[in-house]
């Protein structure tokens, strides 16, 4: 957006410069044609018309597009920011879910190992019982 703003600023200065040059040349020509310098400036302005209005009209023609571009740029930035935040949040959620799933799996494996261990002990005890000589 700031680049569009800079361009707009540069253009505004250029419009002012262009109009100022016109007025200066008009004034000089009037003096060259014999008009007293004191009157030439006012005469040049009268012949040119309202400088401020002309400058604003030109700026409106130039910046209509620049303003639209700036707005589009802003809208695009917001949309992309939202999309990026969404992606990050989704990735974080997935990572957390994976972590929980892993913990669950470890816990399940531990339970299975404990069950296996107790079964083994049970088996050993049964074997010992069977090997003991009858009373």
């Amino acid at each position, binding site marked *: 957006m700031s680049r569009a703003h800079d361009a707009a600023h540069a253009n505004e200065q250029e419009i002012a410069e*262009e109009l100022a040059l016109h007025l200066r040349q008009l004034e000089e020509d009037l003096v060259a044609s014999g008009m007293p310098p004191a009157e030439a400036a006012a005469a040049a302005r009268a012949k040119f*018309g309202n400088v401020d209005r002309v400058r604003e009209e030109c700026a409106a023609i130039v910046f209509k597009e620049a303003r639209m571009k700036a707005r589009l740029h802003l809208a695009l930035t917001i949309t992309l920011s939202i999309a990026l935040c969404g992606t990050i949040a989704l990735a974080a959620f997935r990572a957390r879910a994976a972590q929980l799933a892993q913990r669950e799996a470890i816990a399940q494996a531990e339970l299975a190992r404990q069950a296996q261990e107790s079964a083994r002990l049970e088996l050993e005890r049964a074997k010992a019982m069977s090997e003991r000589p009858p009373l």
Partner: protein
Amino acid sequence: MAKRNTPPPPELIQGTLEVMILRTLSRAEAHGYAIAREIEKLSNNVLAVEEGSLYPALYRMHKRGELSAEWRTTDSGRRAKFYKVTTKGRKRLAEQLSMWERLSGAVDRVLGPTPEVAT
């Protein structure tokens, strides 16, 4: 257009001014002040519009791609914005000129000598 107190319709001024700008620039590229002087000279001072109105027309035409513009130094060593007609501008000028010929021909026939009415 010569009299300030009876201005012609704005669309007429605008359209006519743009064609005159295209015509002037089709001969040679120029900055705004030179365009104003050339139009004034060619029309024998009849078409002395407020010169400021030239610039919105130039900016509109530049935006439409009918003119290109470039800042350069003039012979007197000043920085000025020079305008030039693009291909698109030349096409518009040709269209406008043929339209103008048809229009002025039609107006001439209507306003010309009254034809003798057959009895």
